[in-house]
């Protein structure tokens, strides 16, 4: 008879599924962080002068900053001089069609379940595939263009739509925002760019798939999404990385701008390599994500399912500037083995009648350590602002940790802020109860976990909700669907 503790241990130690690496010829810059490498990247990408200057300003800001100390984990030692800041598949010229993409790369994405061939691709989902910081393919581009939707790599946007990029780049996350954002501003290599014109409802899900492959490289991509007046877009990012013994830094920046009555739904299924069961290796996922509801009545909604990375450290935030604008944050963060997550959101209520909703579900297993950190700030102009926060923690086993750090700052008496929090544990009693009804322990854990995260997964586009549910099951317990 298998004891339920053993199964829970087993579950907590399950191996990473996407740990293979791709053998492909790469152009990799020598390690080191200095002005030369920044100029090199900028030149490689044929960037205009203003962008190089912006990068250099970012680097200057970076040099003056120190690593934060307030996080709820021991800051790992980061040797930023040992990192290579540019890695790209060598074959890359200007690609005109998918046929010109290295077959090895296409195969890699196929293996990850992301077919880049438009015939095979998920109907209704356009994908931008980013391999070691460089966009290798974007599907359904022509179809989207017919409606005026721009969906392309960041590098391409700089060439083709410089005015839009110049206007919005750094407008939500300035290059001085924090040390990782400053670093990203200096060395970012690629990423995705989206522009939805006035009055357009984007007809398909837009999705970026990030893959880190090369060794000793960091991944520093930038995503910029602009939804013009009365437009709508749903965007999803996914990511994986090979298993490597060294830690790798991922310091991305995402900026969202929603103009009048526009709506942006941004979903993340984060599955970077988490390190092995003793905490060796894994990605440091230190990402700055922020959106601004600039126009009245606009809406930004973040949904994240975070299962990977050695350390996940990010607070997808919303600035509710437009009157009656709305911000949402739905999160599932899973830690197991030695993983750490310090995540949550910041919502700034500036306009009047602004509303926000935060649903955070932490799951801790093994020796994982999970913190929710959130700020709800209401400014003096935000008459009748409303916030509801629900912050739950689920513990599996006895050795994991879970913490919540909710901050509330209200400078308007008419604001209404509600906060609810619960901590529960998957108890042996619950498992035994389900066992006694014929359900084995793996399925029992899946049933409990799926029930617990339902409210968040419901926010994901259908296909991805199913994927995320599978991912959670795999993460937490072998192969249960």
């Amino acid at each position: 008879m298998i004891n339920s503790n053993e199964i829970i241990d087993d579950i907590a130690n399950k191996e990473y599924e996407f740990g293979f690496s791709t053998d492909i010829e790469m152009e990799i810059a020598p390690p080191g962080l200095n002005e030369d490498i920044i100029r090199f990247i900028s030149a490689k990408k044929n960037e205009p002068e203003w962008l190089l200057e912006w990068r250099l300003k970012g680097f200057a800001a970076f040099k003056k900053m120190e690593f934060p100390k307030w996080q709820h984990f021991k800051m790992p030692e980061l040797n930023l001089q040992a990192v290579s800041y540019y890695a790209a598949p060598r074959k890359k010229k200007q690609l005109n069609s998918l046929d010109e993409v290295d077959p090895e790369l296409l195969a890699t994405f196929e293996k990850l379940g992301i077919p880049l061939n438009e015939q095979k691709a998920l109907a209704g989902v356009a994908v931008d595939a980013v391999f070691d910081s460089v966009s290798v393919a974007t599907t359904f581009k022509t179809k989207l263009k017919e409606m005026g939707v721009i969906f392309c790599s960041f590098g391409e946007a700089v060439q083709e739509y410089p005015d839009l990029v110049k206007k919005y780049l750094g407008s939500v996350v300035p290059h001085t925002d924090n040390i990782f954002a400053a670093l990203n501003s200096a060395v970012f290599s690629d990423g995705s760019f989206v522009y939805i014109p006035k009055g357009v409802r984007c007809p398909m899900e837009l999705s970026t798939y990030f893959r880190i492959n090369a060794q000793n490289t960091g991944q520093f991509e930038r995503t910029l999404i602009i939804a013009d007046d009365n437009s709508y877009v749903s965007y999803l990012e996914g990511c994986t990385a090979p298993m490597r013994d060294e830690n790798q830094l991922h310091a991305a920046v995402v900026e969202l701008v929603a103009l009048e009555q526009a709506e942006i739904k941004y979903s993340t299924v984060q599955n970077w390599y988490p390190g092995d069961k003793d905490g060796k290796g894994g990605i440091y996922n230190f990402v700055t994500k922020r959106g601004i509801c600039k126009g009245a009545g606009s809406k930004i909604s973040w949904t994240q399912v975070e299962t990977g990375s050695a350390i996940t450290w990010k607070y997808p935030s919303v600035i509710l500037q437009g009157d009656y604008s709305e911000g949402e944050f739905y999160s599932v963060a899973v830690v197991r083995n030695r993983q750490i997550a310090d995540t949550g959101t910041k919502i700034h209520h500036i306009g009047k009648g602004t509303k926000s909703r935060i649903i955070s579900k932490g799951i801790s297993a093994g020796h994982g350590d999970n913190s929710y950190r959130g700020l709800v700030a209401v400014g003096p102009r935000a008459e009748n602002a409303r916030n509801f926060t629900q912050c739950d923690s689920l513990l599996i086993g006895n050795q994991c940790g879970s913490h919540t750090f909710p901050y509330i700052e209200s400078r308007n008496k008419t604001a209404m802020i509600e906060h609810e929090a619960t901590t529960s544990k998957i108890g042996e009693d619950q498992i035994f109860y389900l066992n006694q009804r014929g359900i084995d322990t793996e399925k029992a854990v899946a049933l409990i976990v799926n029930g617990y995260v339902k409210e968040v997964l419901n926010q994901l586009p259908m296909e991805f909700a199913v994927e995320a549910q599978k991912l959670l099951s795999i993460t937490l317990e072998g192969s249960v669907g």
Partner: protein
Amino acid sequence: MLTIKNLHAEVEGKKILKGINLEINKGETHAIMGPNGSGKSSLASVLAGRDNYTVTEGEVWFNGKNLLELSPEDRAREGVFLAFQYPVEIPGVSNLNFLKTALNEIRTYKGLPPLEAKEFLKLTKEKQQLVDFHSNLMNRSLNEGFSGGEKKRNEIFQLAMLDPQLAILDETDSGLDIDALRIVSNGVNKLRDAEKSFVVITHYQRLLEYIIPDFVHVLYNGRIIKTGTKELALELEERGYDWLKEELHLKESV
């Protein structure tokens, strides 16, 4: 159907069951009575396979299979059902989804295809009526925020749905008012047939007025110290357990 031979078990190093012998045949209903702490729930837990109990001696056979070698879920799939004295709450898992999973796991084990949604709903409706289980409880999270009585009814509702061969009811009557007691007992009586057996653990002979047992056993200090028919329950109600304890001490000192 069920044979328990000289069963000894301990929990956290403490001896709880000290040589239980019991034979239950198809279609029989056995009542187990006894003072608090005598080991009734422990016996139920050991039969269901709770892993904090260690069996140190003895055997349990169920339909020719060595029950003690099976995992808890396989015991359930073989047809052992325990209606818990204290059913747990499982937030976020809907009662309906849970039941569908359980039913289909059991069916798969038996080599049957999963029940179609329509058939499942039909079955649910039918069994709900049996114990007067409110349909609004069906879509709620499993036992979450249920009253004591609702939880007990849910146990019997599950029993009706999963249709086991052997059902062990651990103090299903406690926490039920007289009307609920009647409803639950009627439900159980409707489930009784020549193929199924019941073990009814209770403190009160009140329940046994509704669910009339074929045998009554008194469990005391980890052992069955007396076995009789339903009249024994009446006698216990009148006289308490002390006379039995005395009888036992007399026997042991001889």
